[in-house]
C-alpha cells in the first residue's frame, strides 16, 4: 500500500495541489462557523430578544455558504488539473507495459480491461480521496478554530475521543486492505473459473463431467463468500471506530454539561458544541472512513495491479554491432519452453548462405514457428547460437536487427490508419514508385484498388485474413532487410496467390526462408529443412525424397491421390 500512496503523492504537481488546498478553506467555512453562529444567534440574538442580531449571525452562515460554494467550484476545477495528468500517466504505464510484455512473447489478455476499466477506477478513487482528505483536514482545523472561539474547554473535551477514534480506524486499515485484496482476488478467480467452465458446457456434457465442473466452481464461490464475510467483520470494527470518534465526544460534552454550565457556559455555547460534533466532526469522520475504507482500498489494490503489470523484466540492452554479410548460421541450437520440458529443437546446425531460398517443413506443433522466432532473434536459444553475418542475433539491438532481417508471422498485423502507413511500416522512406512496384510484385493490386488506393484509410475489420496477409507481404517486400522469413505468412491466400507472392520474394533478391504451409512452397524452394521432432534433415527436394521417410509422408499426404492438391 505504501508504494501506491507514494506513487499518488509523487505524481501530484505541487502548485495546483497547494492552490486546491487554499481554495478548500472557504469550502470548510460553513461547517467551521456553524456552531459559532448558532451559539451567538441564540445567546445574543433570539434569547436576548434581539432578533436582528440572531438573524444577522444566521446571515453570516449564509455568506459563509456562498463563499463555500465558490471554493467548492474552484476545488473541482483544480481537481481536473491533478487527476487528468495522473490518468495520462496511468494510460502510458498500461500501454507501455502491455506492449512491452507482448513483444517479449507474453500474451496480456487483461491489458484492454486495465486500460478502460482499472485506470478509470484509479482515476475516480484518486479524485475522491483528494476531495475527502483535504476536506477532512480543512474542516477539522476549521471546526477546532470555531470551537476555540466558542470556548477552549470544548476543544479539550471533544478532540481527544475524536482523535482516538480516528487513530483506531487508521490502525485497522492494514487488516482491511488485506481482506479487501483477498476479496478482489476471489472475485476475479470466480469470474475466470466460471468463464472457463461455462464456456465448456457442451464438452462437459459430452464427458458427463457435470459434477466435476460444478465442484470446480464451488471452491471459488465459497472462497468469495468467505472473503466477503471477512470484510463484514471489518465493517463492524469500522462502526465501532466511528462510535468512538463521532459519538463519544457528544456523550462527553453532555456528561460534562452541568459542570460546564456551573462554570458559566451559556445555552448557546452548549448548543454550538453539540452542533460542531453533529454537523462537523461526525460527518467528516464518517466521510473519511467511507472514502479511505472504500475508495482508498480500491485505489491501492487497483493501482497496485496496474503498476505490477506495467513492470517489465530488466534485460541488458543488446549492444552488438551488425556483422559482415548476410549469412545466417545456426550452431548447435537447442531450445525448450521450460526447464522440465522436452526440447523443441535439439542441437541443430544449419547454414543459409546469402541468396538462398529455404523451405522449412514438418508436422504441426513440431517447432517450425519456434525456429522462425529463434532465427529472427525473438527467442533466446537455450544452447548454441544463431548468427547473422557472424554476430549472434540475440545480441543485436532491435533496430539493427530490423535492418538485417524481416519476419512476417502467420497473424498479419494491420492497423487502423493510412494504407500507405501500413505498407511502408518497415520502410518509411519508400517512394511511391517502389511501393507501386511492390504492390504489383506480390499481387496485391486488386486489394489496394478495392480499399481505395494507397492514399485511403485502412479499416482492419474490413479485411479478410488473406487480405491482411497481402498487406503484410507488400510491407516485407519493401523492407530494406536482405533476409526475409515468411512464417506461414501466406496460409490464408489461395494457392495461385501464394505462388505469386513467393515468386516475387524469390526474385526480390536476398535470402528467403519460408515456413511451409503447403508442399508447393517446398517444391519451389532451392533447399528444404525437414523437422521431425528429434532431428532435422536438410537437402534439396530430390535428395530428401530419397533420404527422408517423413518428407515422403508429408508429400504423400499433401497430395492425396484422389484429389490433386493445388501445386
Amino acid at each position, binding site marked *: 500500500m505504501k508504494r501506491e500512496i507514494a506513487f499518488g503523492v509523487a505524481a501530484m504537481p505541487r502548485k495546483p495541489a497547494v492552490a486546491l488546498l487554499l481554495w478548500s478553506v472557504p469550502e470548510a467555512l460553513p461547517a467551521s462557523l456553524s456552531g459559532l453562529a448558532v451559539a451567538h444567534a441564540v445567546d445574543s440574538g433570539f434569547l436576548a430578544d434581539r432578533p436582528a442580531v440572531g438573524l444577522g449571525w444566521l446571515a453570516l452562515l449564509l455568506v459563509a455558504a456562498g463563499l463555500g460554494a465558490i471554493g467548492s467550484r474552484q476545488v473541482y476545477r483544480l*481537481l481536473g488539473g491533478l487527476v487528468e495528468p495522473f490518468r495520462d500517466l496511468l494510460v502510458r504505464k498500461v500501454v507501455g507495459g502491455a506492449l512491452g510484455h507482448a513483444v517479449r512473447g507474453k500474451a496480456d489478455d487483461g491489458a484492454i480491461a486495465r486500460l478502460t476499466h482499472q485506470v478509470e477506477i484509479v482515476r475516480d478513487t484518486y479524485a475522491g480521496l483528494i476531495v475527502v482528505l483535504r476536506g477532512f483536514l480543512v474542516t477539522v482545523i476549521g471546526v477546532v478554530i470555531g470551537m476555540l472561539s466558542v470556548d477552549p474547554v470544548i476543544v479539550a473535551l471533544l478532540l481527544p475521543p475524536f482523535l482516538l477514534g480516528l487513530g483506531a480506524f487508521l490502525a485497522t486499515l492494514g487488516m482491511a486492505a488485506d481482506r479487501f485484496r483477498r476479496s478482489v482476488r476471489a472475485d476475479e478467480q470466480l469470474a475466470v473459473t466460471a468463464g472457463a467452465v461455462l464456456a465448456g458446457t457442451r464438452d462437459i456434457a459430452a464427458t458427463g463431467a457435470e459434477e466435476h465442473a460444478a465442484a470446480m466452481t464451488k471452491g471459488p464461490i465459497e472462497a468469495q463468500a468467505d472473503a466477503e464475510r471477512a470484510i463484514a467483520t471489518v465493517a463492524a470494527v469500522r462502526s465501532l471506530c466511528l462510535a468512538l470518534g463521532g459519538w463519544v465526544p457528544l456523550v462527553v460534552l453532555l456528561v460534562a454539561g452541568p459542570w460546564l454550565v456551573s462554570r458559566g457556559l451559556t445555552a448557546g455555547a452548549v448548543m454550538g458544541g453539540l452542533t460542531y460534533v453533529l454537523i462537523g466532526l461526525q460527518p467528516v469522520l464518517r466521510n473519511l472512513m467511507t472514502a479511505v475504507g472504500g475508495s482508498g482500498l480500491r485505489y491501492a489494490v487497483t493501482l497496485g495491479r496496474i503498476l505490477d503489470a506495467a513492470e517489465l523484466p530488466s534485460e541488458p540492452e543488446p549492444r552488438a554491432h551488425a556483422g559482415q554479410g548476410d549469412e545466417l548460421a545456426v550452431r548447435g541450437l537447442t531450445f525448450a519452453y*521450460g526447464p522440465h520440458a522436452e526440447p523443441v529443437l535439439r542441437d541443430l546446425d544449419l547454414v543459409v548462405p546469402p541468396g538462398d531460398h529455404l523451405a522449412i517443413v514438418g508436422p504441426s506443433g513440431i517447432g517450425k514457428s519456434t525456429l522462425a522466432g529463434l532465427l529472427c532473434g525473438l527467442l533466446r536459444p537455450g544452447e548454441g547460437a544463431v548468427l547473422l553475418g557472424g554476430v549472434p542475433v540475440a545480441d543485436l539491438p532491435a533496430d539493427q*536487427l530490423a535492418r538485417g532481417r524481416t519476419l512476417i508471422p502467420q497473424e498479419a498485423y494491420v492497423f487502423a490508419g493510412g494504407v500507405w502507413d501500413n505498407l511502408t511500416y518497415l520502410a518509411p522512406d519508400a517512394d511511391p514508385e517502389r511501393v507501386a512496384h511492390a504492390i504489383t510484385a506480390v499481387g496485391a493490386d486488386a486489394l489496394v484498388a478495392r480499399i481505395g488506393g494507397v492514399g485511403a484509410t485502412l479499416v482492419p475489420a474490413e479485411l479478410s485474413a488473406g487480405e491482411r496477409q497481402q498487406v503484410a507481404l507488400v510491407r516485407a517486400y519493401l523492407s530494406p532487410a536482405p533476409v526475409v522469413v515468411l512464417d506461414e505468412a501466406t496460409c490464408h491466400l489461395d494457392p495461385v496467390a501464394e505462388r505469386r507472392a513467393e515468386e516475387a520474394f524469390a526474385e526480390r533478391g536476398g535470402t528467403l526462408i519460408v515456413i511451409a504451409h503447403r508442399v508447393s512452397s517446398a517444391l519451389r524452394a532451392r533447399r528444404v529443412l525437414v523437422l521431425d521432432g528429434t532431428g532435422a534433415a536438410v537437402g534439396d527436394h530430390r535428395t530428401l525424397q530419397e533420404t527422408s521417410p517423413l518428407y515422403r509422408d508429408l508429400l504423400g499426404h499433401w497430395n492425396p491421390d484422389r484429389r490433386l492438391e493445388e501445386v
Partner: protein
Amino acid sequence: MITFGDVVRRGGGWLPLIGLAGLVGSLGTLALPTVLGHAVDALVAGHGSGSWIVAAGVLIVISVVFDVVDAYAGTACVAGTTAWLRDRVVRHVFAVGPARSSRFETGDLVTRVSGNAVEAAQAGPAVVTTVAAALPPVGSLVLLAWIDPWLALALLAGLALVAGVLRTFALRSAEAMVAYQQTQGTIAARLAESLAGARTIAAAGTVEAEQQRVLTELPRLHEHGIGTWRIMARSSAQATLVGPLVLVAVLATGGIELLRNRITPGELFAASQYAVIGGGLGALTGVFSRLARAKAGVRRVSEVLDTTPVSYGTASLPDGPGALELRSVTVRAADAVLLDDVSLQVPGGCAVAVVGASGAGKSVLAEVAARLRSPDEGEVLLDGVALAELDHAALRAAVGCAFERPVLVGASIGDAVDVGRSVDVRAAARATHAHEFVSRLPEGYATPLAEAPMSGGEYQRLGLARAWPAQRLLVLDDATSSVDMVTEMQIARTLTDDHGGRTRLIVTHRAATAARADLVVWLAEGKVVATGTHDRLWERPEYREVFG
C-alpha cells in the same frame, strides 16, 4: 424456478436481525435530537438534566450497537445468499445441457453468476431495510411540520432545488462522459490492434513507434476529462449552497419562534437537526433503486433457472458391440428443419463417415448421436436401448464425443483430459498423439491450461484424448480438421487398430478420411442423400463436389 420471495427467504435468520437493527437505529436517530434538545433546556435551567443525559447516552449506545450489528449482518447475509445462488445457477446450466443453454452467451452467463447473483442476493436485506431507511427522513419531515409547518416547507423547497441540480448535472455529465469514453475506446482499439500484431512489432523493433501511435488520442482524452471536472465544479458549487440554505431557513424560522417563546432553545436545536436528517430524503431514491436492482438481479438469475433441465432415464446398457440406430429422427430449430426424418443403422465396431456441404446437418447428427441434443421426433438407440432411457453415468461411459473446436476445462492439461473420471490420461494422449507435444510443455501434464500455448491441431488432439476412454461409441465431429495430415493419418491408424472395436461416427470434410471409413453417410439439407462406401459414391459427380 426461483422467485423474489425465494431469495428473500434464503436470508433466513439474518433478516429479522437486520430489520430490527435498522428499525431501532432509525428510531434512535429520530429520538436523539428531541432528547438532546430537552437535555440542553434542562442544562440551561440548571436542574433535571441528569435523566435526559442518561437517556441520550442510552439512545447513542443502542444505535451504535445496532449499527455494528447491521454492518456485519447485512454483508454476511448477502455473502451466504450469493454463494447459494451462484452454485445453483452453475449446476442448473449443466443440468439444462448444451442445446438449451446455448441461447445464453458464455460471457452473459458469467455476468449472471458473478454480477447479477450478488444483486439478487440483496433482495432480503433490501426488503427489510426499506422501511427502516425511509423512517428517519420521513419522520424528520413530520416532526419538523409538527414543530412548525413552515419549517417543513422550507426543507421541501431546498430538496427540490437539490433534485434539480442533480438532474442537470446528470444530463450534462452524460454528454461529457460519452465523448470521454469514445476517445478511450479509440485508444483501447489501437492497443488491441498492436497487441494482436505483437510478433510483427517485436521483429520490426517498432515498439516505441507503436506506443506513440496508440497514445495519439491521449491529449484529447485529457481535454474531455478536464471537461467533466468543469461540469462537476458548477454542480458541486450549487449543491454546496443548498444544504446550508435549508439549514439557515429552518434556523431563522425557528429563531423567530424562539423569540416569541413558542419554542425552547432545545426545540430550536432539535429542529436544526431534523433539517439535517430530513435532507436525507434525497437519498431515499437510493433505497428504492437497491430494491429495484435486487428485483432485476433475481429476474436475470431466474431466466437461467427457469430453463427446463435434460432428463435422464434409469436403464443401463446390455452387453453389445455398440450398434447405433437412428429411427426417423427429426430435429427442428426455430425456423428450420435441421434433420428431416433421418434413419440409419450402424453395425457395432464400424467406422462411419458423415459427409455433406456446410449446413447439411452433419454436426446436428453428431450431437443427436451423442445425446447432446434430443430429437424432436424419433429416437436414437445404442445396442437397442434408447439414449433417452439410459442413466447419466451409463450414457457418458459408453459414448464419447470430440469436436472441431474443443473447449478444455480443467486446472491443468492432465486435468482437462481426465475431467474427474480417473482415466488413464497418458494412454489416451498417446493414442491420439497428444503425448509428444504435451511432454514438450514446461511442466508436461501438470502445465496449467492458461500457460500452455497450443495450436488448433494440438487442442483437437487433447479433445480427442478426452473422448478416447468411451466404451462403445466415439463421435468425432470434424475433430481432426486442424491436425496436419501426417498426424491425422497416425491417429486414423490408431482408430482402425482400435482393438476395443468401438463404433465410430466421424464427421469430416476430407475425402481421405471418408475413404478409410467402412461406410459413408452423405447428408444434404438435413436428409440422407445416400449411404455406401466412398469408392461407390465417388462415381457420382455431386458427391465429389462435396469435397470441393
